[in-house]
């Protein structure tokens, strides 16, 4: 019988609080692979040890900050993935500042929205617009811009050709831009 995800999230959060060793072991089993991908995407160009350190930092933060997770704002996994992305980005900025990572390792600065437009977007609008994309375009987009994976990595992960990944990204960006401009602007 399939378990209710919300109940499972609450159970895992409680376990992380009451028995961190067991709770973290379970979290690592569930999300260790994704955490590594998220950290690697942000820290591309840094040594593997740096990435492994970052992944461990993410799970340590999961234990430390578990009290900050608010079930009504989304699943525990989504919150944790955001935590990973945030911590990895911090580490990346520190690496750039210390010149151990060159700036040009960043993703290309492509045709996203103007700053004055994005300032009027709400988080809910971004969520809604991304979730309105068709599959597999949405998944490819998330792998590219949320997990910061390269096109060959995405192709390998999702079992698509690189050309198809490139095409999907090419078509998705204007579509998402359109969705955001039409429906996502905060008045």
């Amino acid at each position, binding site marked *: 019988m399939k378990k209710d995800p919300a109940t499972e999230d609450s159970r895992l959060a409680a376990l992380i609080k009451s028995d961190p*060793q067991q709770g973290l*072991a379970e979290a690592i089993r569930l999300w260790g692979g994704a955490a590594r991908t998220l950290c690697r995407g942000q820290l591309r160009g840094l040594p593997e040890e740096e990435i492994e350190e970052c992944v461990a*930092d993410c799970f340590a933060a999961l234990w430390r900050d578990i009290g900050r997770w608010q079930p009504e704002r989304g699943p525990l996994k989504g919150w944790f993935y955001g935590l990973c992305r945030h911590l990895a980005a911090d580490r990346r900025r520190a690496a750039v500042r210390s010149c151990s990572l060159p700036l040009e390792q960043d993703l290309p600065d492509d045709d996203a929205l103007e700053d004055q437009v994005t300032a009027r977007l709400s988080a809910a609008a971004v969520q809604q617009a991304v979730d309105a994309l068709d599959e597999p375009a949405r998944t490819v987009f998330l792998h590219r811009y949320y997990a910061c994976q390269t096109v060959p990595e995405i192709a390998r992960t999702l079992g698509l050709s690189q050309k198809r990944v490139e095409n999907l990204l090419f078509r998705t960006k204007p579509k998402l831009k359109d969705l955001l401009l039409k429906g996502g602007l905060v008045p």
Partner: protein
Amino acid sequence: MKWKDLIATYVPQDEALDEPPLPAAEQDALLERTLQKAGLPGREAGRKRKLFFPRRLAGVCAAAVLLLFVFGASAAFLMDGRLLALWSGGDPSTVAAVQLGQSSENGGYTATLVEAAGDDNLAYFLIELQGPNGEALAQDLGFARVTVRMEDSVRMGWSCEQLPDDDLSDNRTSFLLAFDSSEKMSGRKLSITLEDLYRYRDEGEVLAAGGSWEFETAVQLSGVKRTFRPGGSLDQANGTLHLSKVTVTPVSVSVDLWRNPLPLLFAKDAPDYVFPEMCVELADGTLLTEEDRLSGGAGGEDASVTLRASYRRILDPDEVTAVILDGVRFELK
């Protein structure tokens, strides 16, 4: 603004960004590194119980058929020969045992929780695994992860190993799950999860069946027991251990102590806490040492410490005359 910054507030809700689990060894390494970073005690220390099975267990279990014959004559006796074979002496009819017969199927493999034997705090579960028809299950199987939870969080430890199999050509084999809890387990709900069955071979591990086998049960293994309050204390480098209670059952000897002063276990420069070495003296002069153990462990995270040992010989609680901790004898009267 870049797309990757624009999407920073997005909260993944589904499986789009999920990845397959890391290999078991990498999960373990990551967990240890995480616990270290978080300033938490290591996994074994966190469980506060360490169970171990000497290699000689294999030899003991090889006598299963013979023991089954000997004890099978007792009509009231339920215990499966594979569990009986854990012990090589003493009266098996004094060991509390319960038949379970609960099965869980996954990937063509059916795991059955056959039976449990033990006492209030220690249980040995016999798990039988049946593979797909025509598939031989060799002596190289193991579950990547085994989890046991008991309702109301308590300190506990466990170990699960494949038992020696006398027919490597059939599709059946069995495992022994040893579970040890600081609290009495009688009547409490136990959740047992076995995950990812692997074949461990010299050339590397191969996944035989992914997924999990899950059980929920509750066992009542209360039986013969004697409790002693010998008093006395044991001086150690970082404090004194006071003996409060010794409990003897046919399958274990447990020693409860409390320590003073409280150890600063989590302080940065705290010394490693060393649990005393325990031996058990019997009325006929036999001394049961760590060499004679079937399993054992020590645990305690605050003032209380519990040492527990299970021996390859079934004990008569009346024949246990003393426990010896780090060479100091405490008589049981």
